[in-house]
């Protein structure tokens, strides 16, 4: 199957050297996307975290020990593994901008997509969401709540994209070519160190265009050819190597390719 080409390709570039692992992006994401707090979040098989910060370690001790933090949203792959396995087309990559959609009422909860996604970016609702008393009044109108039995994932705060287009129309701009910064997901907006940049990776006027092509830029598991729209930047070689998951074998990462 040939991957669909888009004029606008929303992408995220995360500078792992700037990320302090504070978790503000995770919190902002949960608020924006109406993810109910769990009564017992210790079972990580059942938590929902569209944005998840991983801790990376260079596995050295003493003065040489180093850690890095890696925020992981949905990669919005150019050639997604989750889309072709969905038996009901509840997930699709079809809209200008290249964001992989997930339609909850259509999802039958078979979780093929979860098995297919190598980034573990998809989550299954094992229970109906329970919001603490009063919190249901503070839910965000941007995202619909999901019932038990469906899969959900990050969608780059898609409603913000729609709102940015509406604002462009109101102000006489072109909704198909938004200026840099007009559309910003909650995680990128809140990041206190500015580690997360967001924009159209195909538009030269957007900051991410250059960031994504920098010499220290890489993507996770590029060898799989899924062509993710999320890029990472780190000056540290051991971090870059971990991105391709070759660390265990000691072999170098696959040749860097950019769309």
């Amino acid at each position, binding site marked *: 199957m040939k991957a669909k080409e888009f004029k606008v390709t929303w992408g995220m570039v995360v500078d792992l050297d700037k990320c302090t692992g504070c978790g503000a992006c995770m919190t902002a994401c949960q608020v924006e996307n109406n993810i109910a707090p769990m009564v017992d979040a210790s079972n990580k098989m059942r938590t929902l975290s569209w944005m998840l910060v991983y801790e990376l370690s260079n596995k050295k001790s003493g003065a040489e020990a180093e850690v890095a933090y890696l925020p992981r949203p949905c990669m919005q792959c150019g050639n997604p593994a989750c889309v072709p396995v969905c038996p009901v087309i509840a997930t699709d990559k079809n*809209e*200008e901008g290249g964001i992989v959609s997930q339609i909850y009422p259509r999802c039958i909860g078979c979780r093929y997509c979860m098995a297919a996604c190598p980034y573990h970016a998809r989550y299954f609702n094992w229970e109906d969401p329970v919001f603490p008393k009063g919190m249901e009044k503070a839910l965000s109108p941007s*995202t*619909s709540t999901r019932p038990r039995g469906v899969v959900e994932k990050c969608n780059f705060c898609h409603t913000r994209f729609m709102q940015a287009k509406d604002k462009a*129309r109101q102000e006489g701009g072109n909704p198909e070519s938004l200026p840099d910064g007009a559309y910003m997901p909650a995680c990128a907006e809140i990041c206190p160190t500015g580690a997360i940049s967001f924009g159209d990776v195909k538009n030269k006027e957007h900051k991410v265009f250059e960031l994504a092509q920098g010499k220290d830029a890489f993507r996770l598991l590029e060898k799989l050819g899924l062509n993710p729209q999320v890029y990472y930047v780190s000056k540290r070689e051991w971090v870059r190597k971990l991105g391709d998951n070759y660390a265990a074998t000691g072999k170098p990462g696959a040749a860097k390719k950019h769309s």
Partner: protein
Amino acid sequence: MDQKLQELWGEVMEEKKQCKGCGGALPFLIGFVAAVIAGWVLFPNLLYSKKVQPVRFSHKVHQEQGMECASCHTFRDDGSYAGLPNNEKCMECHADVVGSDPAEKIYVEQYAQKGKEVPWLVYQYQPDNVYFSHKAHESFECKECHLEVGKMDTPPVYYENRLSGYSKQTMKMWQCERCHAENGVSNACHVCHK
């Protein structure tokens, strides 16, 4: 053996002849009509509850004053749609009773002066997982999608689906999709869903 079969066959045919009175066109017709009434009249009546607007708002009177739809149903500065006007907007004219219509008196005395917003019923509310942009559809006339209330003195009855809680008059997904297809607009899921 053959004889036994023939006897049996004869009995069957005999029974069939006796039964002729219970079949035929008339019972079928009665059953058909009953089914049609049940399916087209009784069931829809059961499925939808009828509700009337809390205030008998006349769009017609307002339109006759030369007001446009957009005079009250406005966009916000960020391009989002404010939808129904609130008391603040209505009270620009109706802080006190200005006409002779009893419905206006009800509005002013029971809502405006008490600082209570009117719980209007919205014929077109969409489910939670729909993102509809009025801004993107601005080039259409309101009445192409909405009930043409501008010519109505009494707001139409609101039909609420007892099972889903949604309005009967709201736009259905196939209608959205057909118009998008006819106009060459994308029907990708995320164009409308959130």
